[in-house]
């Protein structure tokens, strides 16, 4: 995996996060308590003199790991930001897209409408998935959250034109350029707190964090951030290979994103 220049990545992300706050009237960020969205919060504090000046949304299906809930409470207190928890339904007998593919966007729609958010910061990265690699830094969604991927707006020269219909919103993707290993190098450099589930216990660790239904731990002896960086330098295993949703068929991510999934 390629390690990029962290300063370049950091400056671009700070620029985009500031744009999200200053271009739109009412922005929020999604937080899953995972490494990427937590790194996004660390970058937000850099952008705004130590503050997180917008609410942070957790779409909670109630079956995240206990460590994840603990981490949410601890960090929100430590960094002093507002968390909006919106409950989403689950389908007890199913996994993957049949379970959260529809329910998470529904819960998100509800909270976006209730608070009137016109922009949403989402911490996706290009290297996670071929479909996410096709995204813009700012990407419009219409009222029903549809991503019109066949007709994305032009984006150049820091002009994030990002049209959306009046009732839609803009997805802002400040971490699009980052690779998985860059996230971990940044976590190390900035001492960003992370969810303990990422570290190996009994020979297994989570590389990508979802809920208890759909995420399985992968074989690993990486017990700390340094170990993880070392592991990622040579691994040939895909980051999301512990996520059941990604295995259903190759277009499930395209279909879900088109319908408003994160």
């Amino acid at each position, binding site marked *: 995996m390629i*390690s990029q220049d962290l300063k370049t990545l950091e400056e671009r992300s700070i620029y985009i996060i500031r744009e999200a706050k200053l271009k739109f009237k009412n922005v929020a960020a999604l937080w899953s308590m995972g490494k990427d969205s937590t790194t996004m919060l660390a970058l937000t504090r850099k952008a705004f003199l130590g503050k997180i000046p917008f609410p942070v949304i957790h779409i909670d299906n109630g079956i995240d790991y206990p460590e994840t809930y603990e981490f949410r409470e601890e960090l929100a207190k430590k960094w002093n930001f507002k968390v909006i928890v919106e409950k989403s339904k689950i389908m007890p007998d199913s996994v993957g897209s049949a379970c959260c593919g529809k329910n998470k966007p529904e819960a998100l729609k509800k909270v976006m409408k209730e608070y009137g958010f016109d922009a949403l910061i989402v911490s996706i990265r290009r290297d996670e998935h071929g479909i996410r690699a096709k995204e813009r830094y700012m990407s419009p969604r219409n009222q029903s959250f549809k991503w019109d991927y066949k007709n994305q707006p032009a984006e*150049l020269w820091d002009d994030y034109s990002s049209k959306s219909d009046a009732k839609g919103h803009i997805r802002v993707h400040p971490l699009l350029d980052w690779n998985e290993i860059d996230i971990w190098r940044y976590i190390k450099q900035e001492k960003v707190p992370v969810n303990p589930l990422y570290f190996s216990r009994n020979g297994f660790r989570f590389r990508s964090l979802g809920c208890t239904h759909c995420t399985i731990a992968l074989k690993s002896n990486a017990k700390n951030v340094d170990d993880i960086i070392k592991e990622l330098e040579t691994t040939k295993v895909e980051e999301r290979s512990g996520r059941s949703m990604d295995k259903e068929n190759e277009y499930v991510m395209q279909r879900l994103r088109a319908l408003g999934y994160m």
Partner: protein
Amino acid sequence: MMVKTIALLGHKDHGKSTLIGNMLMLTGSATKVRIKEAEEYSKRLHKAFEPAFILDSFAEERLNEMTIDTTRAEIKHKDLAFAFIDVPGHEELIKNMISGASYGDVALLLVSAKKDEGIRDQTKRHLFIARMLGIDKLIVAVNKMDTVGYKETTFNDVKAGLLKYIERIGFEKGKVHFIPVSAYKGDNLVKRSKNTKWYRGMTLIDAVYENAKQEGRKQDGPLRIITQGVLEGGHVVGRVVSGEIRVGERVSVLPAGVEATVKEITVKGKRVKKADAGLNVAIKIDKNIATELRGAVISGNKNKPKLLSKIKAKIFVTGKIGNNLSVKVNGIEIKCKSLKVLGSIDVTTGERSSKKRIELLGAIEAEVVLEKKIPVEDYETTRELGRFVLYSSREFAGICTVGK
């Protein structure tokens, strides 16, 4: 590791996605899952393995074997990494091509040597756009050499057919690498091919490296900060795009024309005495400015950019230019009072003429009159102050650069 971005250019079906896909394969840069996905999909279409499917991830892209939107893929080589930017070659997808290519440090043009393919209008149009986007380093891969028996004369014909044009639109002819390749079969991509013994130049990956390792644009001109807005507490935030800002310095805020002294500079939450180009800053000045601070420019109080409402610009036309015109520059939108065509540039020859017709996917020189004055410099001096995006009734209509 520094990542340099390599923007692919070229007519549709001349092999851009295949080339990147195969480079990923040959350098061991693609992940197993992505290769397996491409393999399975190739099988389903009863085709031999198609490396383009590693990049083309949308169902529609694979089904129709065409790239719809831009994407990136990274390859490590020596002490550098390259992010190859794939773009669509179809004319109607030009806005996606521009979006991708606008991030390029180096351009990599593909021209198919295959009979009846060769240099097309779109080949030249992409080169024209790349120059407008400010890319000055170019590699030309003459592709599909396997279909013409790797003949040197065919390669030379393509080269000769492009050299004059390349020079006319402002690339340095002597510095452009021409390389005979087969993107599909892998000739001269990462290893020298036995099929082209007559070719003595570099492999593609070495040529990319040679270009990418050269230094980028210097940002050592006079102080220019583009502001994004004001935070609660009065910090003005923005990015230093050239020069350096220091505490205690006298600065001008434009277009307001207010002069002030810099009291405080914060970079990534830390108070500093000075900040260089490339950094996002939060600054405090000793005056409350009751004016718009989004898309404003902070400069030294001596060396200031001009304030203009009448701007002469080169425009590449991407959409219908109607009555309701506006430009977007540094995060703000400004209405246009008028746009007068002064002449046109033939994007297939690079020649100027006095023709005053606006053609879609063509280029014009025009005088744009804005509703208010903005800080402007020529594109070569300060990129951020010499470029804007044209919108017509909120639709993307063109990219504009300001000449000297």
